[in-house]
C-alpha cells in the first residue's frame, strides 16, 4: 500500500498544464519518429536529450520517457501498414499486422496494437514499482567483485541474445564498446589512456555524440541506401478504430504473459524491445489454440508482439535506475541524460532519491495514456505522416544529428565523433554486428574497469573473492553457462538431448490419452 501511495503522490506531483503540454508534444513526436522506418527510439531519445538539456530535471526526463514509449509504440504503424517495422522492436508485429491490413482490417489492427502496447506498458509499470525498490536494496550489498561480474554478465548476455545465430559477433560488438570506454581518464588514477594526442579525448568519448552517430547518422545512410518503401494500398473494409473488449478479454492470458515476459527481457542488460516482442510472440504461438493462424493475420499474435515490446520499456528502466546498467539501447541514452540532469542512477538512488522510481513510473503511465488517446484518435494523421518523403526528412535529421551533440558541449570535436560513429555503426550493422552490446559496452566500460581493479586492490591481487563470494560465484557460473551455450558443439549436444526428451514427453502424453 505504501508503494501505491508513493506512486499516487508522484502522479499528483506531476499534475500541471506544463506536464500535459510536454506529454502531448513529446509523445506525438515519439510516435512520429517510431512510425517512420529508419528513425528509431534510440535515435529519438538521443536527439531529444540534446534538445532538453535546458529544461528542468523532471520535465526533461518526462519528455524523454514519452519519446521512448511513443517511439516503441509508433513502430507498429509502419509494421502494420507497410510491412516494414518502424523500429526493430516491431518486427514481430508485422508478421500478423500486415496480413490483417491486407484483409482490410488495418484500422482494427492498429487499435489492437494500441491496446496491446498500453496494457503491456501498464504490466511493466506495476512490475517496475514492485521490483525496482527490492532490487535497489539488494544491490546495496554489491561490492566491487559483484559489480565487475554484473558488467561482464551484461556484455555476455547482450552479445548472446542480440547476436542472432552468431553470438561471436555480439561479443565482438560488446568488446568494441568496452574499448571505446577505455579512452580518456581512467576512473581510479585519472591517468589518460589512448587519447592519441587529442586533448578533447582526455575526458573520454561522449555517449551522446556516439549514440547520435551510431543510431542517427548511420540510419540516414541506411535509409538513403535502401530502395524507397511504398505505402501499401490498404483498402479499409472495416472502419472500426476501437479494440473490442471481448477480444482483449479473450487474450487476457496472452496479454498478462507477454507483459511479464517483456518486462523480464527488459531487465536483462542490453537486450531490448525486439527480443521482448519475439519471446512473447513465440510463447503466445506455442500456447494458443489458434496457433495455425499465427503469421497469417492472428489478432492474438499481434497483441502478443505489441504487449511484449512495450512492456520492455519499464522493464529496461528497472536495472537502469537501480544498477545503472541499461536494459536496452534507449535506456542507455536515458542513463546519460539522467547524469546530465544531475540524477545519479545506481543502488544509492534508493537512499538519495527513493521517490524517483515512483516519479518514473508516473511518467510512464502518463506516456501510456497519451499513446492510447493519440493511437485511437489520430490513426489517419499517422498514415499521412508515413508519406513524408525521405528526401525531405533525412537532411533535416542529419542537421539535428550535427547540431545536437555540438549544442551539449559547444565542441566541433563532438561533430567528428558523431560522424566517425555513424560510419562505424553503418559498417558494423551491414555486417550483422548488433548495436545494443556496443552501447552497453560504452556504458559499462567504466564500471567494469574500476571494479576489477578496485576488487584486485582490496584482495591484494587475489582472484579468489571473484569466485567465492556467493553472488559473484552465481554470476560467474551464469556467465560460463551463457558462453557455453553459444558454442556450437555444446548446442548440438543439447539439441541431441532435447528431441529425445520431447519424444519421451509425447509418448507419456499419448499413454495418458
Amino acid at each position, binding site marked *: 500500500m505504501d508503494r501505491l501511495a508513493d506512486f499516487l503522490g508522484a502522479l499528483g506531483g506531476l499534475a500541471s498544464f506544463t506536464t500535459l503540454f510536454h506529454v502531448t508534444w513529446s509523445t506525438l513526436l515519439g510516435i512520429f519518429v517510431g512510425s517512420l522506418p529508419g528513425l528509431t527510439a534510440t535515435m529519438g531519445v538521443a536527439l531529444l536529450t540534446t534538445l532538453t538539456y535546458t529544461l528542468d530535471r523532471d520535465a526533461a526526463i518526462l519528455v524523454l520517457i514519452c519519446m521512448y514509449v511513443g517511439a516503441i509504440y509508433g513502430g507498429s504503424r509502419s509494421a502494420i501498414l507497410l510491412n516494414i517495422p518502424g523500429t526493430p522492436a516491431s518486427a514481430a508485429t508485422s508478421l500478423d499486422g500486415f496480413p490483417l491490413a491486407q484483409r482490410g482490417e488495418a484500422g482494427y489492427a492498429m487499435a489492437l496494437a494500441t491496446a496491446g502496447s498500453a496494457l503491456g506498458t501498464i504490466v511493466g509499470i506495476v512490475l517496475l514499482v514492485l521490483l525496482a525498490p527490492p532490487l535497489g536494496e539488494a544491490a546495496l550489498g554489491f561490492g566491487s567483485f559483484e559489480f565487475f561480474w554484473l558488467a561482464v554478465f551484461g556484455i555476455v548476455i547482450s552479445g548472446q541474445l542480440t547476436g542472432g545465430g552468431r553470438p561471436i559477433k555480439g561479443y565482438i560488438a560488446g568488446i568494441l564498446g*568496452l574499448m571505446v570506454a577505455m579512452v580518456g581518464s581512467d576512473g581510479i588514477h585519472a591517468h589518460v589512456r589512448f587519447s592519441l594526442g587529442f586533448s578533447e579525448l582526455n575526458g573520454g568519448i561522449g555517449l551522446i555524440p556516439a549514440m547520435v552517430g551510431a543510431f542517427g547518422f548511420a540510419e540516414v545512410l541506411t535509409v538513403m541506401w535502401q530502395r524507397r518503401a511504398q505505402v501499401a494500398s490498404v483498402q479499409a473494409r472495416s472502419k472500426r478504430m476501437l479494440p473490442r473488449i471481448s477480444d482483449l478479454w479473450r487474450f487476457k492470458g496472452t496479454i498478462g504473459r507477454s507483459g511479464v515476459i517483456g518486462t523480464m527481457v527488459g531487465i536483462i542488460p542490453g537486450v531490448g524491445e525486439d527480443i521482448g516482442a519475439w519471446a512473447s510472440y513465440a510463447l503466445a504461438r506455442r500456447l494458443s489454440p489458434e496457433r495455425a493462424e499465427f503469421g497469417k493475420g492472428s489478432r492474438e499474435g499481434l497483441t502478443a508482439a505489441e504487449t511484449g515490446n512495450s512492456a520492455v520499456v519499464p522493464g529496461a528502466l528497472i536495472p537502469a535506475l537501480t544498477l545503472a546498467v541499461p536494459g536496452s539501447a534507449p535506456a542507455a541514452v536515458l542513463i546519460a541524460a539522467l547524469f546530465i540532469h544531475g540524477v545519479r542512477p545506481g543502488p544509492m538512488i534508493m537512499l538519495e532519491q527513493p521517490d524517483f522510481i515512483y516519479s518514473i513510473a508516473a511518467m510512464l503511465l502518463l506516456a501510456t495514456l497519451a499513446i492510447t488517446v493519440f493511437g485511437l484518435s489520430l490513426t489517419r494523421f499517422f498514415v499521412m505522416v508515413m508519406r513524408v518523403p525521405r528526401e525531405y526528412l533525412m537532411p*533535416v535529421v542529419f542537421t539535428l544529428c550535427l*547540431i545536437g551533440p555540438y*549544442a551539449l558541449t559547444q565542441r566541433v570535436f563532438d561533430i567528428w565523433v558523431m560522424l566517425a560513429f555513424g560510419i562505424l555503426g553503418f559498417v558494423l550493422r551491414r555486417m550483422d554486428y548488433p548495436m545494443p552490446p556496443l552501447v552497453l559496452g560504452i556504458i559499462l566500460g567504466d564500471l567494469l574497469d574500476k571494479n*576489477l581493479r578496485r576488487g584486485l586492490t582490496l584482495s591484494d591481487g587475489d582472484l579468489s573473492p571473484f569466485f567465492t563470494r556467493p553472488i559473484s560465484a552465481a554470476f560467474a557460473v551464469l556467465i560460463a553457462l551463457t558462453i557455453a551455450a553459444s558454442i556450437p558443439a555444446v548446442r548440438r549436444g543439447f539439441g541431441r538431448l532435447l528431441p529425445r526428451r520431447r519424444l519421451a514427453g509425447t509418448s507419456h502424453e499419448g499413454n495418458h490419452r
Partner: protein
Amino acid sequence: MSPKALRADRITAAVLFALGLAMLAGGFTMDRLEVRQIHPASIPGLVPMILGAMLALCAVLLFLGARGPATETDAETALDVSGPNLWITLALTLFYALGLVGRMPFELATALFIAGFVAVFTWPAEPGLRGRAIVLGRSAVYGVALAFAVSVLFRDGFLVRLP
C-alpha cells in the same frame, strides 16, 4: 552464408585481430605509475590488455567460423539497395559537416546542404527546363525555411552559440 559475407568476415577478423593486438600492446606499454606507488593490480593498462586479448581471441574464432564453404549464393543474400545513393549521401553529409560548417554562417551552410540534398535526390529524370526549375525553387525554399527554423530553435531557444 554467402561467399561475399564469408570474405567480409575474414577481412574483418584480420582487422579486429590487429586492433586487439594493438590494444594489448598499448595496455602493456602504458605507464604503470610506479612513481605514485599504486597497487600493481590497479595499473591503468590492465583492462585494455584483457580486452585486447579477448578481441584477438574473438577475431580468431570469427576467422575460423568463416572458413567453411558458402551455404548461400551472393544473389540469394543481395539486398535491394542503391550504391550510388549511399555514396551521394555520404559525400553530401561529410561535405556539409567538414567543409561547410565552421567556414560560413551556420544558417547559410545548413540552407545549402538541405537544398542541395533535396535537389539531388528529387532531380527529375526526364529533361525539361520547367521541371528542373520547379525542383530547384522548391528545394531552395525548403532549405532556407528549415535552416532558419533549426538555427532560431538552437540559437534563441536553447541559447547555443552556433558553429
